[in-house]
């Protein structure tokens, strides 16, 4: 005797028609394997009913918050790295373009490479002389200022510099320390 459609009906969760129900019962009375399968399925169903849903260990939301904080901090670091890489790339690109432009201008303006080189060296000398002059100005100011600026002026200056230091530390902390997103 065939086991279909009884096997399908046996495992169906939909309610059967009365005639289907009767036919299935008649089949089960005569078929040992289907009867055994039916009994096993009833056991499985009962086991599912008995073993209800299981929950996580206490404190799951707190552990999730901690994991979220780690993930957000990681994501922030990745964004910072990307921004840094982008900044380095853009500045390097600009520097390269400027260098190419200077080289191209030199080739157009000057008749020979030696003339180009000599002009470059002359410009470098000028820069060094300017720095030297600036250093001299600083030395003179260091000698003159203590006599000119009163003590109260120095106090105000030191206080302002200290306040700037505090503001700088606060801004750095705001940027670097991760914020809680949820309670």
């Amino acid at each position, binding site marked *: 005797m065939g086991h279909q459609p009884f*096997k*399908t009906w046996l*495992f*169906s*969760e939909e309610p059967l028609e009365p005639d289907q129900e009767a036919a299935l019962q008649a089949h089960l009375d005569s078929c040992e394997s289907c009867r*055994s*399968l*039916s009994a*096993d*399925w009833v*056991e*499985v169903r009962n*086991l*599912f009913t*008995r*073993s*209800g*849903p*299981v*929950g*996580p*260990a*206490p404190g*799951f*939301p707190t*552990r*999730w*918050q901690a*994991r*979220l904080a780690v*993930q957000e901090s990681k994501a922030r670091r990745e964004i910072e790295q990307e921004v840094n890489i982008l900044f380095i790339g853009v500045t390097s690109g600009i520097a390269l373009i400027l260098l190419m432009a200077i080289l191209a201008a030199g080739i157009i303006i000057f008749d020979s490479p030696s003339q180009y080189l000599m002009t470059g060296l002359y410009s470098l000398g000028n820069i060094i002389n300017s720095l030297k002059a600036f250093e001299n100005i600083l030395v003179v100011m260091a000698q003159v200022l203590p006599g000119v600026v009163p003590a109260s002026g120095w106090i105000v200056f030191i206080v302002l510099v200290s306040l700037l230091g505090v503001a700088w530390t606060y801004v750095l902390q705001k940027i670097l320390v991760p914020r*809680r*997103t*949820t*309670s």
Partner: protein
Amino acid sequence: MQEKEVEWLTKAQAGDGDAFGQLVETYQIPVFNLCYRMLGNAQEAEDAAQETFLRAYNSMKSYDRQKPFSTWLLSIAAHYSIDQIRRRRMTLVPFEALPYQDLPDLAPTPEAAVTKIEEQRRVRDLLETLSPTDRAAVVMYYWHDLSYTQIAEALDLTESAVKSRLHRARVEMAKSWTYQSSRHSIQERSQNGSPAF
């Protein structure tokens, strides 16, 4: 959907972390249960449940409010767990090789706890015989009371595919029951120091 939940969902979609925290509190058991039934291990289920909520948090904006939040969440959990099972197979870790970890607060008395643990182990052994997708369909149907349509939506299947997978899974589990019952009774006799062993 309850009024409170609608409010949390609205706020969470607007980026309110506190509101999403309330949703985690509310749905921790169904999500953990699905992951636990799928993976059969409490530690892995904890990781999977946390990952599910992280993924949901990150894609809250794409959640369609016309559909139940629980189904959307369980869909994420099921897909993640299926991926984990497939990855586990790639690294050749059999299901039985995983340590069976007891769940907290299973029962009030030690005797009841032992019975509960035994039940959970039997459920795990039964679900183990199924493919990951069939397992997800069975868990959604029997533990979460999802309809065929909701399961089909959650698992990206057609409704008829869900029905056929569930039928196949029921037959498979009924067939495994007898074999597992005899195996469990042998194990019990062995543990109790029966003279036969």
